[in-house]
């Protein structure tokens, strides 16, 4: 694309982000402040994830971008377009093929290996924001490992509603030191962060924070002895397209208005559908 540097960002910007990413990796779960740039995509629409992807990406990378698990989401396509126009990098929908996966709110269902990196788009980097609006105060809480406010909040949830009511954005403890916001991925995806083979990078463009979970790192969702962390329950429902009963499903309607359930990870669903044939039950 004429007039723009490779991967859009100027080298000075990349340098700063790269330095910050290295520090983030050295201190798992800690939010590193960085000077987020104005991007041609609106704040809140993935500028953070984009800045990390653009600082990482090179000729030999293969990029996958998903939103809510779908490669075809308008926003995912917009992001892919920008990256490709400024890098000419190979794009893919196949999770297995990708070296970098930029995602909004989901981890792909398939196994990710040591050569893969996930870049999460993050709206709210601060897990304590629910209980404390001030950045100065939350920074101090992290400094002193004082997470009593969030524990109290969880306790109050149980008293009031009978269970912990965090849906997505479930707070996790990383490396037994930092409380971290995993981005609004569903609880379904949280166990995938623990002891993973892949590197996870998280970036909030508007809030100007970058953080990381190195591979093989302890990631533990907060829970009580008698109120354990649980993933979403689909009550035995299966995907209407591929028959899977072991993926994260979302409710939809078919053309006749009947309620159906579909895999959120569309490319995996497509793979299964091709293998199983239409409407086959999963094994």
């Amino acid at each position, binding site marked *: 694309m004429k007039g723009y*540097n*490779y991967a859009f960002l100027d*080298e*000075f910007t*990349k*340098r*700063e982000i*790269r*330095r*910050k*990413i*290295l*520090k*983030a*990796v*050295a*201190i*798992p779960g*800690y939010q*590193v*402040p960085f000077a987020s740039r104005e991007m041609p995509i609106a704040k809140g629409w993935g500028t953070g994830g984009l800045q990390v992807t653009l*600082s*990482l*990406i*090179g*000729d030999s990378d293969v990029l996958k971008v998903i939103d809510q698990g779908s490669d075809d989401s308008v926003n995912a396509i917009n992001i892919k377009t920008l990256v490709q126009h400024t890098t000419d990098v190979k794009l893919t929908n196949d999770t297995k093929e990708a070296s970098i996966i930029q995602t909004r709110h989901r981890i792909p269902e398939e196994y990710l290996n*040591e050569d893969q990196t996930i870049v999460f788009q993050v709206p709210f980097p601060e897990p304590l924001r629910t209980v404390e609006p001030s950045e100065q105060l939350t*920074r*101090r809480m*992290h*400094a*002193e490992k004082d997470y009593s406010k969030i524990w109290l909040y969880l306790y109050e949830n149980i008293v009031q509603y009978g269970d912990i009511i965090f849906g997505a954005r479930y707070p996790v403890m990383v*490396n037994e*030191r*930092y409380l971290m916001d995993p981005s609004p991925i569903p609880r379904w995806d949280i166990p995938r962060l623990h002891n993973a083979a892949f*590197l996870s990078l998280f970036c909030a463009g508007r809030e100007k924070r970058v953080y*990381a*979970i*190195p*591979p*093989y*790192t*302890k990631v533990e969702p907060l829970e009580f002895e008698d109120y354990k962390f649980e993933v979403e329950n689909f009550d035995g429902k299966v995907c209407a397209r591929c028959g899977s009963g072991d993926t994260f499903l979302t409710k939809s309607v078919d053309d006749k208005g009947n309620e159906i359930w579909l895999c959120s990870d569309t490319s995996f669903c497509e793979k299964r559908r091709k293998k199983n044939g239409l409407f086959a039950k999963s094994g």
Partner: protein
Amino acid sequence: MIGIFDAQLVFRKVLDAMARPGKVVKLPDISLNPPAENKYPFFILFTLLDHEVEFKVLGAKNMGNTEKMSRYITSNTRSRESSLEDADFILIYGGSSRGRIHEMKRGTLEYPDESTTLIYDVERIGTGMLLTISGPGIRGERKTAIDGIEEEEIRDMDMVNSEFPLGVDAIFSDRYGNILALPRSTKVRW
């Protein structure tokens, strides 16, 4: 100076090393002519330094050598040499800072990232002093070896990094293009 694509490649290698401590990673061969026997530490410096950060060179053969290197780094990155306590990146020769690691930036509890990154110029990675390491980025435990690092330095580094999240992050770079990283999160036994 380092080209756009070279910088990207070097960065990915350094990131891989930092995310998987103890993993031996090979840097690409780039043509560079620093006033030093081992050009590889300079790949890392040129990839990461600019006018917003400061550096220091420690333990070079003599003052003249140190000055030459500082000028070389400054003219290629626009980063300036600073005092030891202020430096964001420190290039260390001779395998030891002779106790000066205790003076380097470890960050604060509120901003542990405001700490220095050390780059050690070493003989060879893969042989020499045996280290057993564990922690984030390492599956279970891993054994690694570095020839050209003093035991006193490993001991001092361990002390400096004993109050996580405060600490320093180290990269070792040998003359064959191998690098290895030990972030402060890594537990080291020797």
